């Protein structure tokens, strides 16, 4: 990676322009004030920094006493490392004339939507994130009204809090005065309760919120609760539907909610665009040459894509019905996280690239081979508008990354290579990874997840968003970041590694389907990750040659492992539809997919069907023939004949 040009040059130019000076006259240590600036010019200056360098400065950064070198440092720190920044996009964002008009789901939202219909193996009734955090020194008398007030204002500011998903897989935002549009918090008052009751209630609330997430099909995509405890303590619980909000939004939501709670007079800067505007603009991408070029780039490479890491399994993912994902978590304290960032910078890699490398190493050792396909959750949004990174919505996308770790390399070398390769793939991400995965599955003739091991990092977000999360939330009290419980539930994922920042610390976690893995292997793998990350933070891990297995690809030896052969699909004899039901299904497909369906062995996914269309098809079928089918059953045999067979089977059972 070439080092970023220091911002000092651009800043000198901005100062020269504002102060009417020659760039040569501006020394690094003279203050803005000394050079003739005043406080109004200082405001203008920070606006120019934002416009030209894309860096947001906090209000309190903008003082007249600041020197050019201090400002350059600040700008460098706030800069972040957005992967798509710098690439000119072939579309621009436009405000939709009607902000309440329905708009389509993003590809990943579709995935979650279908997952909620039990469409995949490893799916749940809801895809959501749940977290609760301890509060101290709460003003219990005022906490509820404060939280309700904050949530109300946030829902006015962020339209996504008023979003709903329709049964046919579209979304829209309710106007603020529509009944039920503004989410309200629920309060569990345990101030008078004994220890045992508190423990039991907390467990019940957690279990309930972690296993039945908010569902934007029926209400807000957000569930906020407050537990009041004795001694001015409490807990703030939030559950967020992943269909409505992504991980970046979760961080934003927490920050904004708590900022609004802290101050009755806090007013977030208005958002000039909303999620619907973004989705609509992104939709226009598909008609551009750049999008087609990205698609072709991926299509050319798909046949060489490796399978996922062959992690040993104790149960076939299609045979388990999990309700919760299991978690392992660790942290790097503020000092070690700062040291890690510095070490990354010194080796010319971003912290995210280093963590992706570390996770890959751990997986290679666990799976026994060095080449594998990973999925990454991409939380950075296409920079279509400066407000986009402050907007709550389900912007996230995925990006498939094939990983091949060379033997005999140091960690530093592996990380540099990972960063290069990741950048190359991310450079072709106008087409969503969800669509790429769909095509890969189609080519492999499978409906199983092609990349169930996921990497997700929001490292660098603190810098990108600017100000740090405040500690105090007014009458809600002080947040105790050390006492934080969280749960993720996301379909089609067997194992997900997450890295994020909280209160200047780095937190990382595994979320996994415990039913398919051996617990001691998960423990060992996570321990391995912790050791590696710590060695990278203390500097000792970079120049050592990384120990890796000899095998490049998984020895598929018949043992149960991730990405192993799918259960044999029953072959269907080709030919025209055989009976009335098959004919009816063929006609329905023709109508929905707008292509001729002449053969009963035609696979839904080979003629343009996708999972969302599958949900719609089954909804229509339920209406027409009175038989409600599960999506998953359809995916097992997604042919005309297969569906007819399933309908008959189901009909007989009903």
């Amino acid at each position, binding site marked *: 990676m070439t080092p970023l040009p220091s911002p000092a040059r651009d800043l000198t130019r901005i100062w020269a322009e504002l102060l*009417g000076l020659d760039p040569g006259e501006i020394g690094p240590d003279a203050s803005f*004030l000394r050079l003739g600036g*005043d*406080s*109004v*010019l*200082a*405001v*203008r*200056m*920070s*606006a*120019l920094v*934002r416009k030209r360098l894309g860096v947001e400065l906090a*209000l*309190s950064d*903008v*003082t*007249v*006493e600041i020197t050019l070198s201090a400002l350059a440092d600040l700008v460098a720190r706030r800069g972040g490392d957005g992967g798509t920044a710098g690439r000119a996009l072939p579309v621009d964002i436009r405000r939709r004339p009607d902000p309440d008009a329905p708009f389509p789901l993003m590809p990943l939202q579709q995935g979650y939507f279908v997952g909620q219909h039990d469409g995949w193996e490893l799916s749940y009734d809801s895809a959501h994130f749940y977290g609760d955090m301890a509060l101290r020194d709460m003003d219990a008398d*005022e906490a509820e*009204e*404060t939280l309700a*007030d904050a949530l109300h204002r946030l829902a006015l500011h962020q339209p996504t809090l008023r979003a709903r998903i329709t049964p046919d897989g579209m979304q829209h935002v309710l106007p603020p005065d529509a009944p039920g549009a503004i989410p309200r918090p629920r309060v569990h008052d345990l101030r008078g309760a004994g220890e045992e009751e508190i423990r039991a209630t907390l467990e019940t609330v957690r279990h309930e919120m972690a296993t039945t997430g908010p569902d934007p099909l029926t209400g807000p995509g957000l569930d906020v609760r407050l537990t009041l405890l004795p001694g001015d303590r409490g807990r703030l619980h939030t559950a967020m539907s992943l269909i409505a909000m992504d991980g970046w939004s979760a961080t934003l939501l927490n920050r904004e909610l708590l900022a609004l709670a802290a*101050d*009755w*007079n*806090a*007013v977030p*800067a*208005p958002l000039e665009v909303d999620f619907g505007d973004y989705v609509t603009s992104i939709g226009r991408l598909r008609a551009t040459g750049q999008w087609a070029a990205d698609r072709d780039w991926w299509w050319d490479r798909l046949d060489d894509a490796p399978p996922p890491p062959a992690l040993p399994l104790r149960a076939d993912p299609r045979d388990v019905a999990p309700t919760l994902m299991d978690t392992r978590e660790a942290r790097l304290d503020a000092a070690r996280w700062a040291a890690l960032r510095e070490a990354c910078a010194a080796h010319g890699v971003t912290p995210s690239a280093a963590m992706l490398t570390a996770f890959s190493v751990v997986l290679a050792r666990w799976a026994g081979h060095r080449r594998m396909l990973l999925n990454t959750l991409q939380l950075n949004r296409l920079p279509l508008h400066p407000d986009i990174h402050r907007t709550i919505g389900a912007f996230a996308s995925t990006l498939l990354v094939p990983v091949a770790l060379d033997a005999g390399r140091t960690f530093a070398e592996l990380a540099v290579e990972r960063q290069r390769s990741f950048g190359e793939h991310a450079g072709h991400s106008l087409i969503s990874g969800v669509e790429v995965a769909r095509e890969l599955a189609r080519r492999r003739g499978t409906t199983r997840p092609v990349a169930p091991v996921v990497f997700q990092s929001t490292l660098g977000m603190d810098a990108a968003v600017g100000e740090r999360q405040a500690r105090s939330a*007014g*009458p809600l009290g002080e947040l105790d970041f050390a006492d934080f419980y969280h749960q993720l539930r996301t379909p089609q994922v067997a194992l997900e590694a997450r890295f994020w920042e909280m209160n200047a610390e780095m937190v990382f976690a595994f979320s996994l389907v415990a039913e398919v893995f051996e617990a001691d292997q998960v423990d060992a793998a996570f321990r391995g990750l912790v050791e590696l990350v710590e060695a990278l933070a203390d500097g000792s891990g970079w120049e050592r040659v990384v120990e890796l297995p000899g095998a490049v690809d998984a020895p598929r030896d018949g043992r149960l492992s991730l990405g192993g052969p799918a259960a044999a699909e029953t072959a269907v004899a080709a030919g025209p539809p055989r009976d009335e039901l098959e004919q009816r299904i063929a006609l329905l497909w023709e109508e929905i997919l707008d292509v001729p369906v002449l053969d009963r062995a035609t696979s839904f996914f080979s003629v343009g069907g996708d999972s969302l269309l599958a949900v719609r098809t089954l909804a229509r079928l339920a209406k027409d023939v009175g038989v409600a089918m599960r999506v998953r059953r359809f995916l097992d045999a997604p042919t005309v004949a297969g569906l007819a067979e399933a309908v008959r089977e189901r009909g007989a059972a009903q």
Partner: protein
Amino acid sequence: MTAHRAGLAALGNTPLGDVPGDVRRLDLAVLTGIAAFLGSRLPEGGPWTADQVADALGAAPRHRWIPGRWLTVLADEALVESSAPGRYHRPRRYRRAELAAVRDTLDRARRGLGYPETLTRYLLESLRLLPEQLRDEVSAQTLLFPDGEFGVAAAAYRDNLVNAYLNAAAVEYVRRLAPGRTLELGAGTGSLTVGLLPVLRGCATEYLFTDLSAFFLEEARVRFGGYAFLRAEVLDFSQDLAAQCGPGPFDLVIAVNAAHNAPHVGELLARIRGLLAPGGALLLVETCREHHQSLTSMPFLLSARPGGTRPERRDTRAGTDRTYLTREEWRDSLAAAGLTPRLDLPPVDHPLAAFSQRLFVAARNP
């Protein structure tokens, strides 16, 4: 059409009956916000002196005078208790629900007075950042010109009922005067300038747009580039004028919400008179009473410049904390400077008078 009628015409048929009430509600909402801020920051016990309050808030030296200013007003409005002169009790605590109601009242009054939504945002933001403003970590200018743009200032000085009225009245007056040379002092965001320039097209030979801060001049050059007769220059009106802009004469001198910044208003008026052609006019827009609404911003703008000392007033305001002159003081000062009143609007019994923003025109006798 008289200037007054022209002013009213600009408001269409907006009902004005609630204006005095809304002005009062907006003022009290902001003041209550200040009381709530002090109530949450001051230590228990007391009563406290203004100095002790400034200490408790960690006020920067140049802003130390401000808490005292607030406390005086709060005591007047019975929002703090003052048991002995100069000694104040901590204001009571406000519940979140009460403050949410204050926020709603503020926004409703804002709407009633024709201000755009940004004003609510601005007032709340300046309340939220009182601690930072006092400690000099955030400047009042940052809040007033977010991103270096004029949105808030425009709301405060132009997009509201009274300024729509005053500006239209002023434009009508100037249209009939048809001045050749105009000098604008403290022209800043040019809230009146925008409306004046079109009517000056036929008659004007020069419009000298001046301000102390170069920030505004650059903006004006771009924005008013279409008017060849406009020049924008730095001019400090607390110094000798003729030395900076030449001896005149000018047919019209304008100062919109600026003249009170002069350390001595009488001296400024005398200098202006010296620049006026016989029959030439001075047009002032001035606030004649400090509204509580501006207590979260104005005082900070009036503090000394960083490292400097606070500008002393040497006129009728000497020895007080007052920023503005009253209507009577302006009339007297204009007369004392040998300027004859031509306009004094709105009429004192009109609902718009509740804003206490006024248009004065006074002429040098031919």
